[in-house]
C-alpha cells in the first residue's frame, strides 16, 4: 500500500481536510496536504506538535461588525463542521488529543470550538517502529504501537502497511477503501514482533508511578530553585508541547471596514505576564514559580483532575529546550526527594 498513499489522499481529499506531515521552512509540521508527494512519512516526529490542527496557534473565536462604536452583529464561526483526517500521526501525539479532549470538556462549560472539531476528526496514525532516544512514552503507560487513541493504525512493514481499524469511525472508513487487501497472518506476526522490538528499544525509562504523590506535599521545596536556576524563561517547552493548552484572548479591529474579531493565541505559563494582575501583584513572579507550575500541572494537577498524566512522552521539550533543562533529569531529581525522605524515616 506504500505507494498508494496518493490514492488514499485522492479518495479522501474531497470529503476531508487531509492533514499530514509536510516540510515547511525546514521544519516538519502537520499541514493540509495540497500535493500527496509532499507527505513525509519517514520521520521520527514533527517539531511542531499536531495539536495545532485542532487548536491552532491563532484561532478566531468569533467575528463582529460595528457601526463605528458599538457592535451591531456577532458572526459565529461556520467552518467547524469540516471533517478532518490526521494522517501519519504518532501514537504519543494521538494520545495528546485524548488529553486535550479531557481538558476542553472539563467543567460545566465546555470548549465547543475544540470539541466540535475533534468530533469531526479522524485520526489515522502510524506506529513508531524506532523511537527516538528522548522518547519516553512507555513510562507514561503509553506504547509506540498504542491503538486506543486512534481510529485507524498503520504499521510500517517495510514494503507495505498493515492497516487496522480501531474505532467504529475508522472501521467504517476502511470499509470504503475497497482496494485494501486482507492482511496475512504472517504480516500480523511481523507487526507484533516490530511492536516488541520497539518497546524494548526505549532508552529512557522514568519512574512516574507516584510522581503526583511526591509532588503534592513538596510544593515548597528547595528543589524548585535548583530546577529553575538555569531556565531562561522562554516559552519553547510549552509552545511545542502537544498537551499545553493555555491561551490568551484579544480583540482585533479593522478600522477600515468596521469589522473586528476576537482571537485566541497560544500563551504560556512561562511568561510573567501570564498571571500578572492589573494591580501589579503577580502570584507567579519568578522563574521558580513558573517552572514549578509547568511541572506540577503536567504531573500533579492532571492526575488529580483527570486521573492521567498530562504528558505524552514525546520528548519535544527535552530536545528543544534552549538551555537543555532536561525534563528527564528534573523527574529524576523529584523522585530523589522521595527516596531521601524514606531514608530519613528508616534511619
Amino acid at each position, binding site marked *: 500500500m506504500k505507494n498508494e498513499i496518493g490514492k488514499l489522499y485522492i479518495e479522501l481529499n474531497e470529503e476531508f481536510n487531509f492533514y499530514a506531515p509536510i516540510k515547511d521552512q525546514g521544519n516538519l509540521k502537520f499541514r493540509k496536504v495540497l500535493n500527496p508527494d509532499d507527505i513525509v512519512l519517514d520521520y521520527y516526529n514533527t517539531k511542531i506538535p499536531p495539536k495545532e490542527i485542532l487548536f491552532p496557534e491563532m484561532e478566531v473565536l468569533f467575528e463582529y461588525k460595528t457601526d463605528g462604536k458599538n457592535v451591531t452583529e456577532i458572526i459565529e464561526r461556520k467552518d467547524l463542521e469540516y471533517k478532518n483526517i490526521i494522517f501519519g500521526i504518532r501514537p504519543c501525539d494521538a494520545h495528546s488529543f485524548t488529553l486535550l479532549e479531557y481538558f476542553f470538556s472539563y467543567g460545566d462549560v465546555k470548549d465547543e470550538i475544540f470539541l466540535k472539531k475533534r468530533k469531526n476528526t479522524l485520526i489515522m496514525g502510524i506506529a513508531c517502529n524506532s523511537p527516538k532516544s528522548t522518547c519516553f512514552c512507555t513510562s507514561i503507560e503509553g506504547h509506540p504501537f498504542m491503538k486506543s487513541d486512534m481510529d485507524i493504525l498503520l504499521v510500517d512493514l517495510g514494503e507495505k502497511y498493515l492497516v487496522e481499524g480501531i474505532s467504529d469511525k475508522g472501521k467504517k472508513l476502511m470499509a470504503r477503501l475497497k482496494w485494501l487487501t486482507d492482511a496475512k497472518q504472517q504480516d500480523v506476526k511481523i507487526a507484533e514482533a516490530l511492536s516488541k522490538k520497539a518497546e524494548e528499544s526505549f532508552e529512557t525509562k522514568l519512574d512516574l508511578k507516584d510522581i503526583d504523590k511526591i509532588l503534592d506535599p513538596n510544593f515548597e521545596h528547595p528543589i524548585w530553585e535548583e530546577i529553575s536556576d538555569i531556565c531562561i524563561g522562554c516559552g519553547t517547552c510549552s509552545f511545542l508541547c502537544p498537551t499545553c493548552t493555555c491561551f490568551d484572548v484579544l480583540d*482585533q479591529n*479593522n*478600522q*477600515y471596514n468596521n469589522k473586528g*474579531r476576537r482571537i485566541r493565541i497560544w500563551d504560556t505559563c512561562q511568561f510573567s505576564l501570564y498571571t500578572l494582575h492589573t494591580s501589579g501583584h503577580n502570584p507567579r513572579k519568578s522563574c521558580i514559580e513558573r517552572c514549578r507550575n509547568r511541572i506540577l500541572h503536567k504531573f500533579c494537577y492532571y492526575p488529580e483532575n483527570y486521573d492521567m498524566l498530562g504528558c505524552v512522552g514525546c520528548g519535544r521539550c527535552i530536545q528543544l529546550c534552549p538551555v537543555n533543562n532536561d525534563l528527564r533529569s528534573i523527574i529524576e531529581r523529584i523522585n530523589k526527594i522521595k527516596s531521601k525522605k524514606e531514608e530519613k524515616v528508616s534511619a
Partner: protein
Amino acid sequence: MVTQTKQNKNLEETWEPKILAFLCNWCSYAGADLAGVSRIQYPPSIRVVRVPCSGRVSPYFIIKGIMDGWDGVIVSGCHPGDCHYLTGNLVARRRFAILKELLEFFGIEPGRVNFMWASAAEGERFANLIKKATRIVKKLGPNTKFSKKW
C-alpha cells in the same frame, strides 16, 4: 481586460496616499502653520500629530503607523542645533538613521518613512518637502506589505 487596466490606471492616478506626520511643536508645527497662513499649496495627504519634540517620536509610533495601514510616515523636527530641548533632535536623528536602514534591510520600501527638518520660518520648505514626500509615497503605491489585513 483593457478596460480593467484602464480602470486600474485611473485608480492609480486618483489614489492619494495617507501620510501620518509627527511634527515637532516648536519648529515644524509652526512651519506648517506658516505654510497655511502664507497660503502655500501642498497636497492634503498628511494628517498631523503634534509632538513636543522629534525626540519624542519612538520607532514604535512609526512602525505602528505603517502596520495600521498608513501609506507613509513623516517625522519633522527642528534643524540640528535649534532644538528647543537642545539635543532632542540629535538623539532622534540617530534613531531614525537606524530605523531607516533597518526598514530597507527588511525589504519595506524605505520611502514610506521620511524624516525632515523644517523650522518655524520655513513655510515654503515645509510645503515643498511634503510635496516631495507625497510624491515618493504615491510612487510606491498603497501600503499593503506590512499593514495588517484579514
